[in-house]
């Protein structure tokens, strides 16, 4: 991990409200793995004090892309106003990301938090490895969901919105009873409540939740330092409190105390 100034080289809109920033960060080493994160300074002074955890997707050896969603957070708003040529101060790569075993042929990705940036890298890695990928995407309403038109063509997707404005009306977990039997592995990002529901579903459908079947990325606790110093990002597990920044943010769902 390093702390470095990186330059925005390109800014693309995705759908009506999302941005993708392409950033030249040749010094960033090692290359971030899917599920690992960067801590970005999102202010010029102290107004937006803490760094924001952002999940990058590698583009090539020197570039990464960052997905910026519509969000009331002032730090993310600051970030979405940056333009090509602007510099961003980042620390990373941090944390333990998703793994992808050779045994996996059918990978199910699930997000109930609108954002899918932590899953994009895993999606691309799986596609490159010839794995079939299905994405279940949930959110409150259509306008906050990641635009599915921007997904790589090989990805099969299902959407659910609480207000029914697109896809199934209801929580994303409603989609899963049909998808879980198909999957060899599940990578998810969501709230603790979502993980509780997911654990119950898997136990019902597969009779037990074994280690290695579901990896859940936990973003419920703010990460201040990223290196295990501040202890702000504690996550309860069956092995006592762990830190999202060092032991996670990806945890085996079987070990999470949900």
């Amino acid at each position, binding site marked *: *991990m390093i*702390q470095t100034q990186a330059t925005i080289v390109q800014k693309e809109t995705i759908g009506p409200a999302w941005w993708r920033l392409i950033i030249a960060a040749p010094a960033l080493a090692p290359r971030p793995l899917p599920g690992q994160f960067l801590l970005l300074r999102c202010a010029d002074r*102290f107004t937006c*004090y*803490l760094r924001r955890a952002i999940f990058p997707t590698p583009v090539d050896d020197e570039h990464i892309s960052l997905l910026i969603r519509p969000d009331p957070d002032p730090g993310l708003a600051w970030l979405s106003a940056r333009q090509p040529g602007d510099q961003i101060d980042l620390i990373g790569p941090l944390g333990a990301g998703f793994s992808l075993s050779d045994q996996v042929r059918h990978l199910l990705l699930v997000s109930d938090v609108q954002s899918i940036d932590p899953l994009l890298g895993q999606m691309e890695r799986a596609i490159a490895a010839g794995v079939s990928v299905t994405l279940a995407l949930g959110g409150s309403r259509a306008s906050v969901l990641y635009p599915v038109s921007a997904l790589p063509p090989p990805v099969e997707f299902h959407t659910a919105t609480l207000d029914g404005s697109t896809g199934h009306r209801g929580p994303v977990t409603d989609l899963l009873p049909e998808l879980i039997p198909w999957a060899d592995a599940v990578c998810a990002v969501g709230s603790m409540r979502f993980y509780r529901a997911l654990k119950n579903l898997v136990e019902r459908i597969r009779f037990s939740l074994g280690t290695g079947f579901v990896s859940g990325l936990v973003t419920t606790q703010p990460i201040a330092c990223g290196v295990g*110093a501040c*202890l*702000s990002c504690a996550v309860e597990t069956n092995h006592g409190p762990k830190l999202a920044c060092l032991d996670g943010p990806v945890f085996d769902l079987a070990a999470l105390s949900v």
Partner: protein
Amino acid sequence: MPIELAPDHKIGLALANPIMIASGCGGYGAAYQGLIDQTVFGAIVTNPITLRPRRGAPGLRLVETSAGFVLDTGLQNPGVKKVIREYRQAWSRLGVPIIAHLPAAEPADLHRTARALTGTDTIAAIELGIPHHAIPFDLKLWIEAVQRDCLLPVLVKLPLDRALELAEAAANTGADILVIGLPPLAAALSPTGESVTGYLYGPALHGLALHAVQAVKELVDLPIIAAGGIHTLNDAQAFLQAGASAVQLDSLLFIDPKSAVELARALPAD
């Protein structure tokens, strides 16, 4: 020439640089090792260490505020035995003095924790954390407990909003150095409406701490280490000008570790 922070102490506490890392901001000493050159700092104070493991605060621990944050870790730590097992090798290899932070506890527990840490021969000093509700008589019990089987210098970290009323008690009961101080308690609501009560961090602390340092300097004749909200070289120099012998960096480490290093490089011991 190193700075001697405990000139009246048999062993003393010599720092090569007046800039230290405060407890809670550098883990057990090695957290930032892979990111920055930690050897530029005069010393690193560890995260709180208690006799027995503490699971820490359940639920949300941190809420960001305007230009700062409120943090309550609930003193999460693996307990002194495990801390020693996991970190004693790192402590002897880091190339920077390690000061162990012990939050006030039952005197018998404090005594055993301090004794265990002294026994590792890798600790330069003990920093005793005084809680906000302390009365002067408590300080006597706690400091005596730490010193009973521990010959290392003892830093006493006072709550900065109560430093003035507790400073004399600390000085009269054997503190070698005063640290001013522990951040004030504050509360904040998260975006989802959860309330967190804990220590307040951020640039606003600097003025509070500077005032406390100035006031205590008038009253007590002990070396003072100032801590609270340092973000610039000017912030650090203001403390030194007010009579502090050294300073501790806190949340600057989280938001800009590189500038923490630059700050230490700009202020070598003279």
